[in-house]
Each structure stands twice: as structure tokens, then as C-alpha cells.
């Protein structure tokens, strides 16, 4: 397995050893629950560590520490944002929520769940690059709109939205704005002091941090109902014992992301796109410029993604596909369909996502392997002749 080249960093990433080292004492030494300053010493120590992680994470976001709540991950954070606002404002202000067609499942399925509970949801269309139309967003706002939830970056095609513009618009119209930044933060910086979003979903495991920990930024004064009942942790907003090693690991993982590293990753990604687009009948999905630095998503005509995935797996490469055959839901990628692609384009779509542990030499190796695999699958495809 040591030579295996992992290019599915948007699914999850390898933990960085330095993150593990930072976490280790909180499993074996400072393992007590976080207690108040009048509790026993190990508990106070645990509380101090938790608050220092919170403060580190908050400063990476330009927020104050009290505005950051640790959660079990991006899914919980987005559920908390959408359902928390809906429960807080549904009766008082209105039952209309605006989001996009191409959100990741935590937001999309939270919105659908709220629809079943009587909320009205507008799912904004996106253009062929995956970006929303700000005018359409503005027109969708009505007197009963309580929340706009627009992702910072797309999970499949990597398209970045203009969150600053979305936030300004929400701000002007008095509507709360949530953004799912699980796939972008902190590689694509977000500063809530400059960008007036009210709620931000973040997760650790996509930036070489541990699985099972995330955070939600909640701007001071944002109405948010507590929807998981239990204890009084996390400013009485999120019940459940705090995952202190996780929080420490998350904060450390954020510190380790540097601009230089992101540039190195982007250079590898750019080279792969250039090489892959030399394959006939291929096209880049997503925006050519406004996209995650580590994401490449390419559709190859006349072939199917799961077969590409299996051939590449046999050659030691891990990638992902938007093909219906491969998805757990058996549905073609709602993102590729959302940008106006047909089922064939989803069927032949491949996502490559880079991370810290990829090497420059991997790029030509994967590009060569992809070219060979596509050629051999087209050889046996009934439509392959059209590719020549």
C-alpha cells in the first residue's frame, strides 16, 4: 500500500503526525472532562486546552473565541445552522430558506427535512461553471426569508461562490447567511471580520486533521435554537461531552496549512488538468478560475466512472466519480446535473483531489494511467469509435 497514490482528499485526508502528537496528551494525561475553574485540576487543564484550541480556530477565521462551537463534524455543523435558525425564527419571522441546487448533502438534506416540516425552500440554479446568479438570489429574498445558505466551495467540482457578495446582500436585506466551508476552510481563507456571514460550517478531516470533529462559527447575536438536548456544553448550544483531543487536533491542523503548501498543491493540480485535457473528448467540470486549489473534475465521454475508478485502483491510484453506478444513492451526481450536464457527463466524471502528502512525481504517473485507462475503456466501448 505504501506506493498507493491517494487522490481523494475531498473525501477524507491522511492525518498529519504533528496533529496526532498535539492530540496525544489529551488521550492519556489530560483526559478529564472540561470543568469550570473550580473543578479538579485535570478538568481545569482540559478546559484551558479546549479554550486555547477554540481561540486558535477563531483567530484563523477572524472571529472571537465565544463565536466558535465545536461539533462532531461538518454534517452536524450544517444541521445545527439550518435547523437551529429554523427553530429559532420559523414561528417568529418566517419559514423561507434559500440555498442552492448543488449543496453538499448536510445542507441539501437539512433543507429537504425542513420542507417536510412546513418550511419553503428555494434551491437556486447555478450556471454551467457552478456559480449562482446574485440577481436571482436577490429576487428570491422575500419578507419571510430567514436564512440564505450558500456553500463556499463545491464538494465535487470545486467551484467557489462569491460568499462576500452573498453575505453583503444578506446583511443589507436583514437575512442571516450560512456558508458550508467544509471543503474550503482554511485553504481558501475566510475572514468573518471582513465577510459578514453569520454561520460557517468547518471540518477537520479534510485538512489532515482527525475525523469526528468540526466547528460552527456563530456570529454574536445570531438567533439559534439548541436542537440536541443534553448537557450545557459549548455555551449551552451543543450538548455532549467536548471532544478535547479532536478540538486540539483541529486547531493544530489549521495552523499547519500554509499559503506555500497550497500553492504547491495547486501547481500539481494545474499540471494534472493540463495533462488530462489532452485526452480527446474530455472537459473540465466547474469553474476554470474560481475553484478549490486542490480539485480537478473531468468528464471523459464514452466511458463510465466506476470502471475508470476500478482500473485506476488496480494500478494504485484512488480517485472518485460522479457516476450513478458508484453512488450509494444510485443517483447520478446532482452537481453535474445541476451545472447542466447530462447523465452521460455524470457517468464519465472523475474527481481528483490533492493533499499535503501527494508528490509532484505522482502527477505524471496518474496522468499516464488515466490516459491508458480511458483509451482501453474506449477500445471496448460501443461508442468508442467516435472518440478517434
Amino acid at each position: 500500500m505504501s506506493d498507493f497514490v491517494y487522490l481523494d482528499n475531498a473525501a477524507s485526508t491522511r492525518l498529519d503526525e504533528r496533529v496526532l502528537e498535539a492530540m496525544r496528551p489529551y488521550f492519556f494525561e489530560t483526559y478529564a472532562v472540561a470543568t469550570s475553574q473550580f473543578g479538579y485540576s485535570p478538568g481545569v487543564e482540559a478546559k484551558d486546552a479546549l479554550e486555547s484550541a477554540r481561540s486558535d480556530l477563531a483567530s484563523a477565521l477572524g472571529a472571537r473565541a465565544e463565536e466558535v462551537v465545536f461539533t462532531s463534524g461538518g454534517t452536524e455543523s450544517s444541521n445545527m445552522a439550518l435547523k437551529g435558525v429554523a427553530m429559532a425564527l420559523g414561528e417568529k419571522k418566517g419559514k423561507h430558506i434559500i440555498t442552492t441546487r448543488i449543496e453538499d448533502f448536510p445542507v441539501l438534506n437539512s433543507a429537504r427535512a425542513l420542507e417536510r416540516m412546513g418550511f419553503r425552500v428555494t434551491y437556486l440554479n447555478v450556471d454551467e461553471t457552478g456559480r449562482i446568479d446574485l440577481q436571482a438570489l436577490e429576487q428570491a429574498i422575500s419578507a419571510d426569508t430567514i436564512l440564505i445558505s450558500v456553500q463556499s466551495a463545491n464538494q465535487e467540482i470545486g467551484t467557489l461562490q462569491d460568499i462576500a457578495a452573498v453575505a453583503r446582500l444578506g446583511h443589507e436585506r436583514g437575512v442571516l447567511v450560512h456558508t458550508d466551508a467544509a471543503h474550503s476552510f482554511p485553504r481558501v481563507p475566510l475572514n468573518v471580520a471582513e465577510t459578514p456571514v453569520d454561520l460557517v460550517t468547518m471540518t477537520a478531516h479534510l485538512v489532515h486533521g482527525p475525523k469526528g470533529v468540526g466547528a460552527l462559527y456563530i456570529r454574536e447575536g445570531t438567533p439559534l435554537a439548541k436542537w440536541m438536548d443534553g448537557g450545557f456544553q459549548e455555551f449551552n448550544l451543543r450538548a455532549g461531552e467536548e471532544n478535547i483531543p479532536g478540538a486540539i487536533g483541529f486547531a493544530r491542523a489549521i495552523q499547519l496549512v500554509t499559503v506555500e503548501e497550497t500553492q504547491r498543491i495547486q501547481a500539481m493540480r494545474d499540471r494534472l488538468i493540463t495533462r488530462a485535457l489532452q485526452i480527446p473528448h474530455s472537459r473540465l467540470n466547474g469553474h476554470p478560475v474560481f475553484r478549490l486549489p486542490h480539485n480537478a473534475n473531468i468528464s471523459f465521454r464514452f466511458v463510465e466512472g466506476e470502471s475508470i475508478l476500478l482500473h485506476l485502483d488496480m494500478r494504485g491510484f484512488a480517485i472518485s466519480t460522479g457516476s450513478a453506478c458508484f453512488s450509494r444513492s444510485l443517483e447520478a451526481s446532482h452537481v453535474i446535473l445541476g451545472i447542466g450536464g447530462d447523465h452521460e457527463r455524470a457517468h464519465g466524471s472523475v474527481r481528483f483531489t490533492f493533499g499535503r502528502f501527494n508528490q509532484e512525481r505522482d502527477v505524471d504517473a496518474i496522468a499516464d494511467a488515466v490516459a491508458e485507462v480511458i483509451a482501453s475503456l474506449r477500445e471496448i466501448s460501443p461508442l468508442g469509435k467516435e472518440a478517434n
Partner: protein
Amino acid sequence: MYNDRILQHFSNPHNVGDIPDADGMGQATGGDKCPEDLAYFWIKVVDGRITQVRQKTRGCPVAIAASSATSVLAEGKTLEEAGRITVEAVAAVLGEMPERKFDSIVGPKALAAAIEDYRSRTEG
């Protein structure tokens, strides 16, 4: 992970290609769960027996493996015998697979269409 029989057929599919002067040609698409799966089958028939079969398939690994297995089963068979190559028969050859993948076994349908095409040509 797919079983070894599926992986073998998928990695080295049998009878890939086409027959320009085929006696029968048929095509079929996958079921509801995988409508993008697509197989073309060509056959040569001598004295009521399939002497040559070629196929091309686009689809997931099961679709590709199933067309390969279908073509192996059909070789040398009488048209009547070949007509009895069902999705279930091919699934049995391939061994264990997720049930939803039955929708991707398009080979038998394409073969049946090729036999049908041969019959309509000879009877017509």
C-alpha cells in the same frame, strides 16, 4: 471489492470487437438503476449455430464483465441454446455481486437482440 471472476472478466474481457459482416447485430441498455450502461453484440451463424460472437460495452465493471461472460457462454451454441442465456445465468457465472448490479447485466439482452436481428433477416 468485486470477486475474482468479475475482476478477471473486467480486466481482460473476452470477444471484444465487432463483426463488419455480421449475420445479426443487437444492442441493449441497462435498467432503471444504470440506464447509461450500453452493450452491442454481433454474431456469425452457421447452420443454426453461433460460430463467432463479438461485443463492445460501456458501463460499470459488472456491465463489462457480464458482456464478456455472455459472449463466452454464447460461443458455439445453437440459437435456441443461446436464447436461454439469461441475466440470472450470467450472474451465476460471475458469482456474488450486489443485487442492484443485476441492472447492469446488459449482455444477455444485447445477445438476444442480435439473435432476433438474425432471425428477422433470414426469415425476411
